[in-house]
């Protein structure tokens, strides 16, 4: 393995000071221009713990997102005795999605499509507005990796301690610390995979089944898969998932514009960088004391001072790290901060311009989100809880009866999505002097009961007697079937055709 020697602007030394009382951290960006040029083996990153506003925000986001993930399947929602009482449940066996009062059947999956379209557009909007907010704060890869690093830090200490431990020989201390870390990771991974399966089956029941070994094999298989992938992606692979596996970094650069707020190093303020000696004036030099605190905290192993890079997930931890240093050397905060391309390229503070929010791409994304939401709301409002379809017989199209009359057959399917039985009555209109019958019923106007949550098919025969066949006029005569809900009086009208040999 060859190690690419990165460019160094000055001599490296253990005792180097960036400013009085501030040690220059002995770190080089793992992901840099040089490392992208040719194949190099992965260099392990040891992210240092940051303190500050954004770190706190990220802790809160982690708590909320993990809280939702682990607790959501346990929330109950009463839907009556025949239906599951889990607030969020993807019931594959019965092809339903339950979410609180919402119940989506398999054939209504377009609602899910709508949610996905809105999610994608919201992602575009946020990216145009403030860069990779999703990657930096809310992506499961980021959240779980953060959690895994937290655990690693708990057992092995912060950056320096971890580096020392990795270099140290395999002593008893190293073995137990490493073992504890990996066991903790596996337990977190097991909990992650374990909770995932609860989204697909009543959580308390499945929990008991999992423990007693009575759960379906598929539950164990998926638990295993997600335990393994959580351990692998969050614990071991970490930043490599974002850099090599995820397609989003390749796309998102096309979604920025010069007004997008991105985590950036304000070069006009920071350069020329260099160590700051005690008593040295701050005029004619930059505010960056080259302490490399921003590099040490970066979970992606980049140097934000090199500008926008594919590897940067914009987690803003470098802002926290830099602000802490700026406070110590008594310079203003914000050497690294959320800023726009236009302002970063500004020659000085006075050339800066405020962010414009009324930009075409923001308006287009917002408009599209509003449009799709309105479409979804409309679809939800007009969504029918009783679905009726009429399928005319195709083979044979019509039957000639012994008296010379013509008979057509229709299958009427009534899907009752409500939780109570419904009674319907059939009405037929459109052909002359017809006689109708429903298989299994005495009369064509008999009450047709459809059980709750059920689909029932009725076979209907409509005959036109010999004397009236000549009145049909065409080989296909329009026929109207009306299915009336006897309780509400609502009628669903379905147009179909009555087939005959023709004139």
């Amino acid at each position, binding site marked *: 393995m060859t190690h690419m020697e990165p460019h160094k602007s000055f001599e490296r030394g253990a005792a180097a000071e960036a400013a009085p009382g501030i040690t220059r951290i002995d770190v080089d960006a793992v992901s840099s221009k040089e490392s992208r040029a040719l194949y190099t083996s992965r260099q392990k990153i040891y992210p240092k713990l940051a303190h500050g506003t954004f770190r706190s925000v990220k802790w809160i986001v982690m708590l909320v997102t993990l809280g939702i993930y682990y607790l959501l399947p346990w929330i109950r929602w009463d839907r009556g005795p025949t239906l599951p009482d889990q607030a969020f449940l993807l019931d594959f066996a019965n092809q339903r999605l339950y979410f609180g009062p919402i119940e989506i059947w398999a054939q209504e999956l377009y609602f899910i499509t709508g949610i996905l379209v809105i999610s994608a557009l919201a992602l575009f909007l946020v990216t145009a507005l403030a860069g990779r907010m999703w990657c930096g704060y809310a992506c499961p890869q980021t959240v779980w990796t953060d959690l895994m690093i937290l655990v690693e830090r708990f057992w092995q200490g912060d950056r320096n301690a971890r580096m020392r431990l990795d270099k140290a020989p395999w002593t008893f201390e190293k073995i137990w610390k490493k073992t504890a870390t990996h066991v903790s990771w596996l337990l977190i991974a097991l909990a992650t995979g374990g909770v995932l399966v609860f989204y697909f089956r009543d959580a308390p029941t499945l929990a008991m089944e999992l423990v007693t070994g009575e759960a379906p094999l598929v539950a164990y298989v998926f638990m295993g898969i997600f335990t393994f992938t959580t351990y692998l992606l969050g614990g071991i692979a970490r930043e490599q998932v974002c850099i090599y596996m995820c397609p989003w970094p390749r796309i998102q650069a096309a979604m920025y514009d010069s007004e997008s707020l991105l985590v950036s190093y304000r070069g006009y303020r920071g350069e020329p960088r260099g160590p700051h000696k005690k008593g040295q004036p701050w005029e004619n030099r930059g505010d960056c004391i080259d302490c490399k605190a921003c590099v040490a905290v970066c979970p992606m192993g980049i140097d934000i001072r090199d500008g926008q890079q594919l590897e940067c997930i914009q987690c803003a931890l470098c802002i926290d790290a830099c602000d802490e240093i700026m406070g110590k050397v008594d310079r203003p905060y914000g050497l690294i901060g959320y800023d726009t391309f236009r302002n970063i390229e500004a020659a000085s503070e006075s050339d800066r311009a405020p962010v414009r929010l009324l930009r075409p791409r923001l308006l287009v994304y917002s408009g599209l989100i509003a449009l799709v939401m309105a479409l979804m709301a409309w679809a939800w409002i007009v969504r029918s809880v009783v679905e009726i379809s009429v399928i005319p*017989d195709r*083979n044979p199209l019509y*039957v*000639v*009866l012994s*008296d010379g009359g013509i008979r057509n057959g229709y299958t009427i399917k009534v899907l009752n999505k409500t939780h109570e039985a419904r009674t319907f009555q059939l009405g037929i209109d459109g052909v002359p002097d017809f006689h109708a019958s429903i298989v299994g019923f005495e009369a064509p106007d008999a009450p047709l009961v459809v059980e709750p949550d059920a689909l029932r098919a009725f076979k209907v025969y409509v005959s036109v007697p010999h004397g009236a066949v000549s009145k049909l006029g065409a080989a296909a005569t329009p026929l109207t079937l009306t299915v009336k809900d006897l309780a509400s009086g609502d009628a669903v009208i379905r147009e179909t055709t009555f087939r005959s040999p023709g004139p």
Partner: protein
Amino acid sequence: MAGHKEYDAATGAETTGHVWDGDIKELNKPLPKWWLYVLYATIVWSIGYWILYPAWPLAEDYTRGMLGYSQRNVVAQEIADAKQTQAPFLEAIANKSVEDVRGDANLMEFVRRGGAAQFANNCAPCHGSGAQGFKGYPNLNDDDWIWGGTVEAIENTIRFGIRSDHASTHQGVMPRFGIDGLLDRAQISDVAEFVLSLSGKSEDAEKAERGSVVFAEQCAACHGADGKGMVEMGAPNLADAIWLYGGRKQDVVESVHGGRSGMMPAWEGRIDPVAIRMLAIYVHSLGGGE
């Protein structure tokens, strides 16, 4: 190059020793580790697979594997499971009366679907996939039944067949009036005209009048004096709108001249009695059952 390792000056990486165009050397870069490990894992997996599952072909047999897995057994098990699921339904159909079966919506749904499957397997080649029939093969959707249209009559027809080799088969032969010289050409033409007149299709009243005499002598014994047929003889109704062999004059002449004796095999012994009953109820439910 054995024993001698060469390193590239620019990158410090080992080279393969291959040189192109005098100075271009290939770096010896390893395969990605994850890729290698996956390869090793698949090799280990395949060895386990050979031990547990059927794998290697031998001269006359193959290695069977320790799990005793066989796709034939899987299919056999699936069939057995399906039969076990169907058993309570099949038992009910065998033991209950036809009326009770038709009154039970659940059972009727089973019969309708099972009957449709049996029909597609056994009956569709002659009667058509929609039971719509062809020339010489009756349409089973209509309300015209040569051998009776009750569930019991249909069940009997399916069991014993028509002019089949079964002892209880439906018999009844339409004589070959022309070929066997029972009627001459003019008489056949006359009687055909009369048959058409029964359903109002005759265009020559005088001829039909002559034919009515022939009909009374030769045909009425089976088809009835009014031509409405006789189920006991399997003699079709000649006065309705349904024509098994065609309703044009030349079709009727052909039927009288050469006789008709279409056959249907007996299904008793070929498919089990419950399947026959399901078929009978299914055919009866197609819209024309009596």
